[in-house]
């Protein structure tokens, strides 16, 4: 057995010993982590925007309180992840610059519009559901601060999926119009949710190295298949129809076979041409710019308070 303290990077990875911020690590490992963790953090805070669209129009006080709590969680999750990235030697402002300049990406799913209240259900159920499926294995990622942030996030996020399913359930068991609204939301969010798992393993440039470094533990296609298997069963409970005519149970593999994903659409949205890319980025930039005076004022206030305290001690 390799000693936890003495083993070098490769040995630690091979023996599942967590890498911590001050340990030696290859530059590419550090770069990969900064890219992945910050992309994840950006997704959390951009992910607040489609839901923010419905806070004032939530159908009841209960729904509004729940939606606000979910959005607040996402802000917190962004913060946990930014903090984890900062342990790798990048500053928060640099990360935000990368988001605002378009250099850094965030999950493409948030470039779709939230058109009806049922979208709040579909997002919680499908988008958070897919995110959780992705995130649970990341709790065992080889980089300590990332893994610890993911543990906290997964713990908090299970309510997100449940509240989404509850919204869908109420609508699906409601009037004809409500049921239609739920089905429409499922139709629009199903395929983008499947795309959240990323390109097929054969086309994923980062997967192999990330699996070797034990940042990633399960491949895109395996996670996607697991998501389909679980979610199709939940759709039956709702009495809704998955918008895929090729969806069929395969007794041989013990999994559902499903239709081809429209990768042209996926890459088009990644490249910035989705329905809301521009709107989302503008909203983030406006929030950053409009908050500048607050950040400055808080610093000035803190310095003044400190000076006053020092003067009091000196007197």
């Amino acid at each position, binding site marked *: 057995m390799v000693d936890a303290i*003495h083993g070098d990077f490769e040995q630690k990875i091979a023996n599942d010993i967590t890498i911590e911020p001050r340990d030696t690590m290859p530059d590419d490992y550090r770069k990969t982590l900064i890219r992945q963790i910050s992309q994840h953090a950006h997704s959390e805070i951009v992910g607040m925007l489609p839901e923010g669209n419905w806070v004032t129009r939530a159908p009841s006080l209960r729904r509004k309180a729940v939606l606000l709590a979910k959005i607040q969680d996402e802000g*917190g999750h962004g*913060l946990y992840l930014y903090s984890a990235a900062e342990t790798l030697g990048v500053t*928060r*402002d*640099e990360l935000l610059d990368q988001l605002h300049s378009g250099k850094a990406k965030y999950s493409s799913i948030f470039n779709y519009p939230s058109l009806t209240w049922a979208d709040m259900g579909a997002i919680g159920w499908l988008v958070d559901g897919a995110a959780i499926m992705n995130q649970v294995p990341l709790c065992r990622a080889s980089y300590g601060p990332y893994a610890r942030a993911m543990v*906290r996030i997964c713990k908090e996020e299970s309510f997100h999926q449940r509240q989404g399913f509850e919204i869908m359930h109420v609508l699906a068991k409601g009037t004809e119009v409500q049921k239609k609204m739920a089905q429409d939301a499922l139709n629009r969010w199903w395929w983008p949710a499947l795309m959240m798992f990323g390109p097929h393993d054969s086309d994923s440039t980062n997967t192999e190295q990330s699996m070797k470094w034990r940042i990633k533990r399960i491949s895109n296609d395996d996670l996607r298949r697991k998501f389909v298997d679980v979610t199709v069963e939940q759709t039956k409970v709702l009495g809704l129809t998955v918008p895929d005519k090729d969806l069929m149970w395969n007794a041989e593999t013990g999994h559902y076979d499903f239709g081809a994903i429209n990768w042209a659409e996926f890459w088009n949205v990644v490249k910035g041409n989705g329905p809301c890319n521009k709107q989302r980025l503008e909203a983030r930039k406006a929030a950053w710019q409009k908050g500048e005076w607050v*950040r*400055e004022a808080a610093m000035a206030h803190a310095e003044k308070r400190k000076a006053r305290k020092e003067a009091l001690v000196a007197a």
Partner: protein
Amino acid sequence: MANETNKLEWPLWEVFIRSKAGLDHKHAGSLHAADAQMAIENARDVYTRRMEGISIWVVESKNIFASDPKEAESLYDPANDKIYRHPTFYNLPDEVKYM
């Protein structure tokens, strides 16, 4: 790798939370805040939204001094060969049932 162009960035703080009476404060994570008071308020919002704590400590990250992982070998060496510090080092006669 501090970025000199970002002088406005609020300082970084480390947050420690006591989850219930009788337990130690444990490192929960970090956050940016203009001063200690704001760090505590932010820590409340970020790390105790689900009643995870009854007491919060914050320390500005630059004030934490940490051991160097590269020096671990020499740093912990004095403890390596002193197994007589553990109770299992000692043989007791079978007649002694509890100790």
